[in-house]
Protein backbone atom coordinates (compact mmCIF):
# COMPACT_ATOMS: atom_id res chain seq x y z
CA UNK A 1 0.00 0.00 0.00
CA UNK A 2 1.15 3.52 -0.80
CA UNK A 3 1.16 6.49 1.52
CA UNK A 4 -1.69 8.04 -0.49
CA UNK A 5 -3.78 4.88 0.09
CA UNK A 6 -3.28 5.12 3.84
CA UNK A 7 -4.12 8.85 3.78
CA UNK A 8 -7.29 8.10 1.80
CA UNK A 9 -8.40 5.33 4.16
CA UNK A 10 -7.71 7.46 7.26
CA UNK A 11 -9.68 10.39 5.78
CA UNK A 12 -12.65 8.14 5.02
CA UNK A 13 -12.61 6.60 8.50
CA UNK A 14 -12.49 10.13 9.95
CA UNK A 15 -15.50 11.13 7.82
CA UNK A 16 -17.31 8.06 9.10
CA UNK A 17 -16.55 8.99 12.72
CA UNK A 18 -17.99 12.48 12.12
CA UNK A 19 -21.14 10.90 10.65
CA UNK A 20 -21.32 8.49 13.59
CA UNK A 21 -21.11 11.38 16.05
CA UNK A 22 -23.86 13.29 14.25
CA UNK A 23 -26.00 10.15 14.12
CA UNK A 24 -25.62 9.45 17.83
CA UNK A 25 -26.63 13.01 18.70
CA UNK A 26 -29.66 12.84 16.42
CA UNK A 27 -32.71 12.70 18.66
CA UNK A 28 -35.22 9.99 17.82
CA UNK A 29 -37.15 9.90 21.11
CA UNK A 30 -40.16 12.10 20.27
CA UNK A 31 -40.85 10.56 16.91
CA UNK A 32 -43.91 8.33 17.23
CA UNK A 33 -45.65 8.91 13.93
CA UNK A 34 -45.14 6.03 11.51
CA UNK A 35 -44.78 7.14 7.92
CA UNK A 36 -44.88 4.80 4.93
CA UNK A 37 -43.71 6.31 1.69
CA UNK A 38 -43.90 4.74 -1.76
CA UNK A 39 -41.97 6.43 -4.55
CA UNK A 40 -42.17 10.00 -3.30
CA UNK A 41 -45.75 9.87 -1.99
CA UNK A 42 -46.74 9.34 1.65
CA UNK A 43 -49.33 6.56 1.72
CA UNK A 44 -49.69 6.09 5.50
CA UNK A 45 -49.14 8.40 8.45
CA UNK A 46 -50.49 7.29 11.83
CA UNK A 47 -49.30 6.81 15.38
CA UNK A 48 -46.99 3.80 15.76
CA UNK A 49 -49.11 2.78 18.78
CA UNK A 50 -52.10 2.14 16.53
CA UNK A 51 -51.99 -1.60 15.71
CA UNK A 52 -52.51 -2.16 12.01
CA UNK A 53 -51.53 -4.20 8.98
CA UNK A 54 -50.80 -2.24 5.83
CA UNK A 55 -50.63 -3.87 2.43
CA UNK A 56 -48.81 -1.89 -0.22
CA UNK A 57 -49.72 -2.42 -3.87
CA UNK A 58 -48.30 -1.06 -7.11
CA UNK A 59 -50.37 0.70 -9.80
CA UNK A 60 -51.29 -2.66 -11.38
CA UNK A 61 -52.59 -4.03 -8.07
CA UNK A 62 -49.61 -6.34 -7.38
CA UNK A 63 -48.82 -6.79 -3.70
CA UNK A 64 -45.41 -5.28 -2.92
CA UNK A 65 -45.07 -5.27 0.87
CA UNK A 66 -47.02 -5.98 4.04
CA UNK A 67 -46.19 -3.83 7.07
CA UNK A 68 -47.22 -4.99 10.55
CA UNK A 69 -47.69 -2.44 13.33
CA UNK A 70 -48.13 -3.95 16.78
CA UNK A 71 -47.29 -2.89 20.35
CA UNK A 72 -45.46 0.23 19.20
CA UNK A 73 -43.26 -1.61 16.70
CA UNK A 74 -43.47 -1.76 12.91
CA UNK A 75 -41.85 -4.32 10.65
CA UNK A 76 -42.14 -5.68 7.13
CA UNK A 77 -43.55 -9.20 7.08
CA UNK A 78 -43.78 -9.64 3.31
CA UNK A 79 -41.75 -8.32 0.40
CA UNK A 80 -42.23 -9.25 -3.25
CA UNK A 81 -38.61 -8.49 -4.16
CA UNK A 82 -35.75 -11.00 -4.40
CA UNK A 83 -33.40 -9.91 -1.62
CA UNK A 84 -35.99 -9.35 1.20
CA UNK A 85 -33.61 -6.85 2.81
CA UNK A 86 -36.50 -4.95 4.39
CA UNK A 87 -37.71 -8.09 6.22
CA UNK A 88 -34.20 -8.82 7.50
CA UNK A 89 -33.94 -5.27 8.88
CA UNK A 90 -36.34 -6.11 11.70
CA UNK A 91 -38.70 -3.71 13.50
CA UNK A 92 -38.54 0.02 14.12
CA UNK A 93 -39.91 1.51 17.31
CA UNK A 94 -39.94 4.85 19.13
CA UNK A 95 -36.39 5.83 19.99
CA UNK A 96 -34.78 3.75 17.24
CA UNK A 97 -33.23 5.95 14.60
CA UNK A 98 -33.30 3.48 11.74
CA UNK A 99 -35.60 3.38 8.74
CA UNK A 100 -36.80 0.40 6.77
CA UNK A 101 -36.11 0.73 3.08
CA UNK A 102 -37.28 -1.56 0.30
CA UNK A 103 -35.56 -0.02 -2.68
CA UNK A 104 -36.78 -2.50 -5.33
CA UNK A 105 -40.36 -1.57 -4.41
CA UNK A 106 -39.44 2.07 -3.71
CA UNK A 107 -40.90 1.85 -0.20
CA UNK A 108 -39.50 3.72 2.79
CA UNK A 109 -40.80 3.32 6.35
CA UNK A 110 -39.68 5.78 9.01
CA UNK A 111 -40.72 7.62 12.15
CA UNK A 112 -41.65 11.28 12.15
CA UNK A 113 -42.64 13.77 14.81
CA UNK A 114 -46.15 15.07 15.46
CA UNK A 115 -44.64 18.26 16.84
CA UNK A 116 -43.13 19.11 13.45
CA UNK A 117 -46.58 18.82 11.86
CA UNK A 118 -48.15 21.15 14.45
CA UNK A 119 -45.40 23.65 13.78
CA UNK A 120 -46.26 23.39 10.11
CA UNK A 121 -49.95 24.12 10.79
CA UNK A 122 -49.10 27.08 13.00
CA UNK A 123 -46.94 28.55 10.27
Amino acid sequence: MKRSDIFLICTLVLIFLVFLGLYLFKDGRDKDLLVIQRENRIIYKESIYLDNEISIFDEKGNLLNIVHIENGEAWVSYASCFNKDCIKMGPIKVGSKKQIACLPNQVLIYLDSLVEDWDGVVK
Partner: protein
Amino acid sequence: MRKSQKIAWVGVFSSVAIAISVLESYFSFSSLLPGLKLGLANIVSLTALYILGPIYALAIQFVRIMLTGFLRASPITFLFSFVGGMTSILLVILIRRINKEAFSVVGLSVIGAIVHNVAQFFAALLVLKNIDIFWYIAFLTLFAVLGGVLTGISAKYLIKALEANKRH
Protein backbone atom coordinates in the same frame (compact mmCIF):
# COMPACT_ATOMS: atom_id res chain seq x y z
CA MET B 1 -1.22 -10.03 -25.30
CA ARG B 2 -3.02 -10.27 -28.64
CA LYS B 3 -6.45 -8.73 -29.07
CA SER B 4 -8.11 -12.13 -29.60
CA GLN B 5 -6.53 -13.36 -26.36
CA LYS B 6 -7.81 -10.30 -24.54
CA ILE B 7 -11.33 -10.89 -25.84
CA ALA B 8 -11.14 -14.50 -24.64
CA TRP B 9 -10.05 -13.21 -21.22
CA VAL B 10 -13.03 -10.81 -21.20
CA GLY B 11 -15.28 -13.87 -21.51
CA VAL B 12 -13.51 -15.67 -18.67
CA PHE B 13 -13.43 -12.63 -16.39
CA SER B 14 -17.08 -11.78 -17.11
CA SER B 15 -18.23 -15.31 -16.26
CA VAL B 16 -16.27 -15.32 -12.99
CA ALA B 17 -17.61 -11.85 -12.09
CA ILE B 18 -21.21 -12.93 -12.77
CA ALA B 19 -20.76 -16.11 -10.70
CA ILE B 20 -19.31 -14.10 -7.78
CA SER B 21 -22.15 -11.53 -7.99
CA VAL B 22 -24.83 -14.22 -7.95
CA LEU B 23 -23.14 -16.09 -5.09
CA GLU B 24 -22.71 -12.89 -3.10
CA SER B 25 -26.41 -12.09 -3.38
CA TYR B 26 -27.11 -15.17 -1.25
CA PHE B 27 -24.85 -13.93 1.54
CA SER B 28 -26.47 -10.71 2.60
CA PHE B 29 -25.51 -8.51 5.55
CA SER B 30 -28.84 -6.71 5.34
CA SER B 31 -29.71 -7.24 8.98
CA LEU B 32 -26.76 -4.92 9.69
CA LEU B 33 -27.46 -2.42 6.94
CA PRO B 34 -29.67 -2.72 3.84
CA GLY B 35 -27.79 -3.28 0.62
CA LEU B 36 -24.55 -4.07 2.43
CA LYS B 37 -22.21 -6.20 0.30
CA LEU B 38 -18.47 -6.78 0.14
CA GLY B 39 -18.42 -6.17 -3.63
CA LEU B 40 -16.22 -9.18 -4.34
CA ALA B 41 -16.95 -9.02 -8.08
CA ASN B 42 -14.85 -5.84 -8.14
CA ILE B 43 -11.76 -8.04 -7.69
CA VAL B 44 -12.35 -9.18 -11.27
CA SER B 45 -12.91 -5.67 -12.68
CA LEU B 46 -9.78 -4.33 -10.98
CA THR B 47 -7.69 -7.28 -12.13
CA ALA B 48 -8.98 -6.80 -15.68
CA LEU B 49 -8.04 -3.12 -15.50
CA TYR B 50 -4.43 -3.98 -14.69
CA ILE B 51 -4.07 -7.07 -16.90
CA LEU B 52 -6.17 -6.20 -19.96
CA GLY B 53 -6.67 -2.42 -19.85
CA PRO B 54 -9.45 0.12 -19.21
CA ILE B 55 -11.73 -0.65 -22.17
CA TYR B 56 -11.79 -4.34 -21.33
CA ALA B 57 -12.39 -3.66 -17.62
CA LEU B 58 -15.29 -1.40 -18.57
CA ALA B 59 -16.68 -4.09 -20.88
CA ILE B 60 -16.48 -6.73 -18.13
CA GLN B 61 -18.21 -4.46 -15.64
CA PHE B 62 -20.94 -3.66 -18.19
CA VAL B 63 -21.52 -7.32 -19.10
CA ARG B 64 -21.61 -8.34 -15.43
CA ILE B 65 -24.13 -5.67 -14.44
CA MET B 66 -26.36 -6.32 -17.45
CA LEU B 67 -26.41 -10.11 -17.08
CA THR B 68 -26.80 -10.23 -13.28
CA GLY B 69 -29.51 -7.57 -13.74
CA PHE B 70 -31.39 -9.79 -16.20
CA LEU B 71 -30.88 -12.84 -14.00
CA ARG B 72 -31.93 -11.48 -10.64
CA ALA B 73 -32.71 -7.81 -10.34
CA SER B 74 -35.88 -5.75 -10.49
CA PRO B 75 -35.73 -2.64 -12.73
CA ILE B 76 -34.97 -0.41 -9.75
CA THR B 77 -32.24 -2.71 -8.34
CA PHE B 78 -30.77 -2.89 -11.82
CA LEU B 79 -30.75 0.91 -12.04
CA PHE B 80 -28.86 1.14 -8.73
CA SER B 81 -26.33 -1.52 -9.80
CA PHE B 82 -25.82 0.14 -13.17
CA VAL B 83 -25.38 3.66 -11.80
CA GLY B 84 -23.09 2.53 -8.96
CA GLY B 85 -21.04 0.01 -10.94
CA MET B 86 -20.46 2.05 -14.06
CA THR B 87 -19.72 5.32 -12.20
CA SER B 88 -17.19 3.59 -9.95
CA ILE B 89 -15.29 1.83 -12.74
CA LEU B 90 -15.28 4.99 -14.90
CA LEU B 91 -13.85 7.07 -12.05
CA VAL B 92 -11.24 4.44 -11.20
CA ILE B 93 -10.18 4.33 -14.87
CA LEU B 94 -10.05 8.14 -14.98
CA ILE B 95 -7.89 8.40 -11.84
CA ARG B 96 -5.53 5.73 -13.17
CA ARG B 97 -5.36 7.54 -16.51
CA ILE B 98 -4.54 10.90 -14.89
CA ASN B 99 -1.86 9.47 -12.61
CA LYS B 100 -0.99 5.78 -12.65
CA GLU B 101 1.18 6.08 -9.57
CA ALA B 102 -1.23 8.09 -7.38
CA PHE B 103 -2.85 5.08 -5.72
CA SER B 104 -2.13 1.36 -5.54
CA VAL B 105 -4.76 -1.20 -6.47
CA VAL B 106 -5.97 -1.13 -2.83
CA GLY B 107 -6.49 2.65 -2.93
CA LEU B 108 -8.29 2.41 -6.27
CA SER B 109 -10.48 -0.35 -4.87
CA VAL B 110 -11.47 1.82 -1.89
CA ILE B 111 -12.21 4.77 -4.21
CA GLY B 112 -14.33 2.49 -6.40
CA ALA B 113 -16.29 1.21 -3.39
CA ILE B 114 -16.96 4.71 -2.06
CA VAL B 115 -17.99 6.08 -5.46
CA HIS B 116 -20.25 3.06 -5.93
CA ASN B 117 -22.08 3.88 -2.69
CA VAL B 118 -22.26 7.62 -3.32
CA ALA B 119 -23.66 7.09 -6.83
CA GLN B 120 -26.23 4.64 -5.48
CA PHE B 121 -27.19 7.12 -2.77
CA PHE B 122 -27.96 9.77 -5.39
CA ALA B 123 -29.95 7.24 -7.41
CA ALA B 124 -31.92 6.32 -4.26
CA LEU B 125 -32.43 10.01 -3.47
CA LEU B 126 -33.80 10.52 -6.96
CA VAL B 127 -36.26 7.63 -6.53
CA LEU B 128 -37.35 8.16 -2.90
CA LYS B 129 -36.82 11.94 -2.63
CA ASN B 130 -36.11 11.62 1.10
CA ILE B 131 -32.85 13.10 2.38
CA ASP B 132 -33.03 10.98 5.56
CA ILE B 133 -31.58 8.03 3.64
CA PHE B 134 -28.34 10.00 3.87
CA TRP B 135 -27.61 8.11 7.11
CA TYR B 136 -27.29 4.90 5.15
CA ILE B 137 -24.51 6.31 3.01
CA ALA B 138 -22.77 7.49 6.16
CA PHE B 139 -22.61 3.96 7.54
CA LEU B 140 -22.00 2.36 4.17
CA THR B 141 -18.83 4.52 3.98
CA LEU B 142 -17.16 2.47 6.69
CA PHE B 143 -18.11 -0.83 5.10
CA ALA B 144 -17.01 0.49 1.69
CA VAL B 145 -13.55 1.10 3.17
CA LEU B 146 -13.41 -2.41 4.67
CA GLY B 147 -14.77 -4.05 1.51
CA GLY B 148 -12.53 -1.91 -0.69
CA VAL B 149 -9.39 -2.89 1.24
CA LEU B 150 -10.37 -6.57 1.15
CA THR B 151 -11.12 -6.62 -2.60
CA GLY B 152 -8.07 -4.47 -3.31
CA ILE B 153 -5.69 -6.84 -1.50
CA SER B 154 -7.31 -9.84 -3.23
CA ALA B 155 -6.96 -8.11 -6.63
CA LYS B 156 -3.31 -7.28 -5.88
CA TYR B 157 -2.44 -10.96 -5.36
CA LEU B 158 -4.50 -12.06 -8.36
CA ILE B 159 -2.78 -9.50 -10.59
CA LYS B 160 0.63 -10.66 -9.33
CA ALA B 161 -0.23 -14.31 -10.04
CA LEU B 162 -1.59 -13.55 -13.51
CA GLU B 163 1.38 -11.32 -14.39
CA ALA B 164 3.78 -14.11 -13.34
CA ASN B 165 1.78 -16.59 -15.39
CA LYS B 166 1.85 -14.28 -18.42
CA ARG B 167 5.67 -14.31 -18.43
CA HIS B 168 5.85 -18.12 -18.66
